[in-house]
């Protein structure tokens, strides 16, 4: 790409570089009043310079923090860069956060200036204003509904860019920036503890963005749809850091509801989606296929079977027979091509998914269509890119090998440690948390447990605090097993036991919608969840799922001992109201083990059935007792792969 890394060490310098080199090429597109409007790189640079002058006049100084609250809009990104021009640090906040959640970041970073997208965001900031005495200026982009606001703090973005541009001043300010300066502060969502502000330097972000861009051969012809929240590190990387490194164009959708349409119009070449988005898309496709005519359904079924068999291999460049190649070609004409088009993925060269475990069937679905979907591993603290699956070596259950520049190692407890040029500088004003996360030698403690597979690909299995050991000392990763079970549409929740025991057993909650549908197709009458839970047919269905998981586990030498030997289907669905799940639907394993202690005992003492009597809380607040005889099922286990090979 011919960028001199030495001198272009900050984002503002990169922007000016692109304005000179490719001033006429699109930098940002935004759909406004139904038409895609383009900001070229030179327009982008002009806007940033004007805005930076305005901000400087309003008293933004080097080292100040500027909050940005809004959806993906060109002006949010302009403000990000304008703040950086002045040596200030942009702090993007989640636009869908309630006012309450915005107070902490603003107090913590002593934010003085904030840019808000519209009335909604301005109202939130005004609401917390009394508790945030440092906040003196709020600028809004969209004036709608704000005409009658008389608060002294509120002013429009338009006024801000009316300031006369002092080029010499801006150029000098940009030149003063160093790669080691802080470039952004992103707040972690803080599900477990209070939010922490992760400070990242220009150097860290630019380095990681560049390494990944080179690996995937991204250039200034690539196009990205900017549809995830700007306060999230992934969005920061894909819609700000990487375009600044490579000069590609980002497109801002019209609204959250139009993303699908906009994606089809834009045709991104580089795409990121968390598993839940991919799953929602697949569900939409499935539902529409069920409503399609018989011939179309037949075509879809036949060709998807072929794609499932050879699509992934073709994408990986592995040998495939001529007949299969021809069938896949036909499928591409009739099904895969049109489907990619509907999904807006016709032009996607590289697609990533990350954030949580992705089901192998879901993952393979996209790959079999010829979409180069890959997994990556990273976090806010690492400027995202730690591991990426390289083309041709994509597996559904690993996240690939380390990208260049990253060192990985494990503690004896299997915690993953990372050393990389992309590591964060610190948690803002939280030296204790910084010291806990980053040790003296510069290793970042991720809290994730995992190991390398035979090919040196990283496999993340669980959070370290949840990983245990079986009685024989082998690894026991309950969440990994539970996720594997939950990838089956029939299984809604699973709770695995095995820490300190000789084998693994599980509680299962089936998915009532999926199983009810399954039962109806078999003309099986039933009264409800509890009734289905006692049926032998349902036990067989669940047993089938478990045995498939066991077969999978047997192939992995590290986890072959974690095969599930016995299970029972719980008589009720686990519920947050009973304290069995957290509000974000994570199982509270310890609490469940205590509450259902007799059931766990029965799983291990060889009984065929177990009597259960339970207090249940109804939704209206009353409680009652429930008693039943629960069956316990056995599942077949498989000899570990190594042993098979020896045999």
């Amino acid at each position, binding site marked *: 790409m011919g960028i001199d890394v030495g001198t272009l060490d900050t984002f503002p310098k990169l922007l000016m570089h692109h304005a000179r080199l490719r001033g006429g090429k699109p930098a940002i597109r935004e759909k406004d*009043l*139904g*038409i895609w409007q383009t900001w070229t790189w030179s327009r982008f640079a002009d806007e940033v310079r004007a805005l930076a002058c305005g901000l400087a006049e309003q008293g933004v100084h080097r080292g100040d923090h500027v909050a940005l609250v809004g959806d993906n809009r060109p002006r949010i990104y302009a403000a990000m860069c304008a703040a950086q021009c002045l040596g200030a640090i942009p702090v993007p906040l989640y636009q869908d956060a309630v006012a309450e959640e915005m107070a902490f970041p603003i107090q913590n970073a002593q934010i003085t200036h904030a840019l808000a997208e519209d009335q909604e965001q301005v109202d939130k900031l005004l609401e917390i204003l009394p508790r945030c005495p440092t906040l003196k200026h709020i600028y809004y982009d969209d004036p*709608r*509904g704000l*005409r*009658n606001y008389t608060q002294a703090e509120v002013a429009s973005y338009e006024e801000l860019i009316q300031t006369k541009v002092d080029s010499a001043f801006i150029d000098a300010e940009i030149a003063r920036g160093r790669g080691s300066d802080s470039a952004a502060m992103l707040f972690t969502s803080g599900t477990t503890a209070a939010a922490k502000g992760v400070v990242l330097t220009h150097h860290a972000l630019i380095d990681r963005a560049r390494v990944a861009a080179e690996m995937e051969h991204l250039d200034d012809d690539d196009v990205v749809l900017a549809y995830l929240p700007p306060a999230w590190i992934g969005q920061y990387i894909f819609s700000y850091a990487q375009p600044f490194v490579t000069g590609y164009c980002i497109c801002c959708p*019209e*609204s959250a*509801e*139009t993303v699908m*349409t906009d994606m089809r119009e834009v045709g991104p070449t580089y795409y990121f989606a968390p598993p839940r988005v991919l799953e929602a898309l697949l569900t939409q496709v499935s539902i529409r296929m069920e409503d399609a005519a018989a011939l179309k359904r037949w075509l879809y079924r036949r060709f998807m079977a072929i794609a499932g068999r050879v699509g992934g291999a073709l994408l990986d460049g592995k040998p495939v027979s001529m007949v299969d190649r021809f069938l896949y070609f036909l499928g591409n004409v009739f099904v895969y091509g049109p489907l990619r088009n509907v999904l807006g993925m016709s032009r996607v060269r590289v697609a990533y998914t990350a954030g949580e475990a992705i089901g192998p069937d879901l993952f393979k679905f996209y790959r079999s269509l010829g979409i180069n979907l890959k997994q990556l591993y990273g976090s806010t603290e690492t400027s995202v890119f730690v591991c990426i699956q390289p083309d041709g070596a994509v597996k559904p259950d690993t996240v690939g090998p380390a990208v260049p520049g990253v060192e990985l190692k494990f503690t004896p407890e299997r915690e993953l440690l990372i050393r990389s040029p992309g590591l964060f500088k610190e948690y803002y004003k939280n030296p204790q948390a910084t010291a806990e996360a980053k040790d003296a030698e510069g290793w970042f403690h991720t809290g994730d447990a995992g190991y390398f597979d035979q090919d040196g690909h990283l496999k993340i299995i669980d959070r370290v605090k949840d990983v245990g050991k079986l009685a024989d000392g082998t690894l026991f990763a309950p969440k990994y097993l539970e996720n594997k079970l939950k990838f089956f549409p029939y299984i809604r929740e699973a709770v695995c036991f095995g820490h300190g025991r000789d084998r693994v057993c599980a509680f299962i909650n089936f998915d009532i919608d999926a199983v009810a549908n399954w039962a109806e197709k078999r003309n099986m009458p039933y009264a409800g969840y509890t009734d289905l839970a006692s049926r032998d047919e349902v036990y067989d269905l669940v047993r089938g799922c478990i045995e498939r998981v066991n077969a999978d586990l047997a192939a992995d030498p590290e986890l072959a001992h974690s095969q599930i030997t016995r299970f029972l289907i719980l008589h009720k669905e686990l519920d947050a109201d009973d304290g069995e799940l957290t509000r974000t639907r994570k199982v509270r394993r310890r609490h469940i083990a205590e509450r259902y202690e007799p059931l766990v005992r029965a799983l291990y003492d060889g009984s065929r059935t177990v009597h259960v009597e339970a207090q249940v809380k109804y939704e209206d607040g009353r409680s009652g007792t429930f008693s039943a005889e629960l069956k316990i099922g056995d599942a077949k286990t498989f000899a570990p792969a190594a042993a098979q090979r020896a045999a």
Partner: protein
Amino acid sequence: MNGTRTGEVVLSVQDVSLSFGGVRALQGVSFDVRSHEVRAIIGPNGAGKSSLLNVLNGVYHPQEGKIRFRDKEFADMDPHVAASMGIARTFQNIALFKGMTVLDNIMTGRNLKMGCNFLQQALWLGPARREELAHRRAVEEIIDFLEIQHIRRTPVGRLPYGLQKRVELGRALAAEPQLLLLDEPMAGMNLEEKQDMCRFVLDVNDHYGTTLVLIEHDMGVVMDISDRVLVLDYGRKIADGIPDEIKNDKSVIDAYLGVAH
């Protein structure tokens, strides 16, 4: 809510009476509407609210009385005259073109503003094209204003009720009215849809400066968003004033709750 915002009287109705054969729908009703005002008309079923609205935009012709709109006096209105003078309305039972898209439906609201003749439009000549672009922009601004970008190309018949109501409001707005008549804009909506609609009604009033006359049954909505309320019962005006007065007016309470005889 704030009396200072509203201006001088733009519409006044004096002693209007309307009957259908022996049914006297309106009997000597007088009231006025000030500019930038949100004026509500309430009353029990059959009180004559919709009839009054229909008189205002010329669908019904009253037998007696006078209507004064923007310094012009009429014995009765004509729908075309009403529309060209800047009166637009929505209907109690949605009257959109079900098979057409949202965009096209709102575009029909621009009809009176189009100057090109049929031939120019059919041949897609320069002036027609330029005109359509300008109108399309105006329509897109309304789409943006009402936050319905995601259904721009969806046929109206496929939309849920609440959204159809919003599209109908959009079509009325497309005529850039000075006076907008809304016939039960929130009927049949759930709470969330009602809140959305209230916000849009207030935004229209604030952003475009449109004067609004609305019929509504939800008292919470009426008391919250209107500046003045007119109450009808059996075709007669029984009260007229700001929401607080109306709430405590004995004749209004009697009309709604009935009186013990």
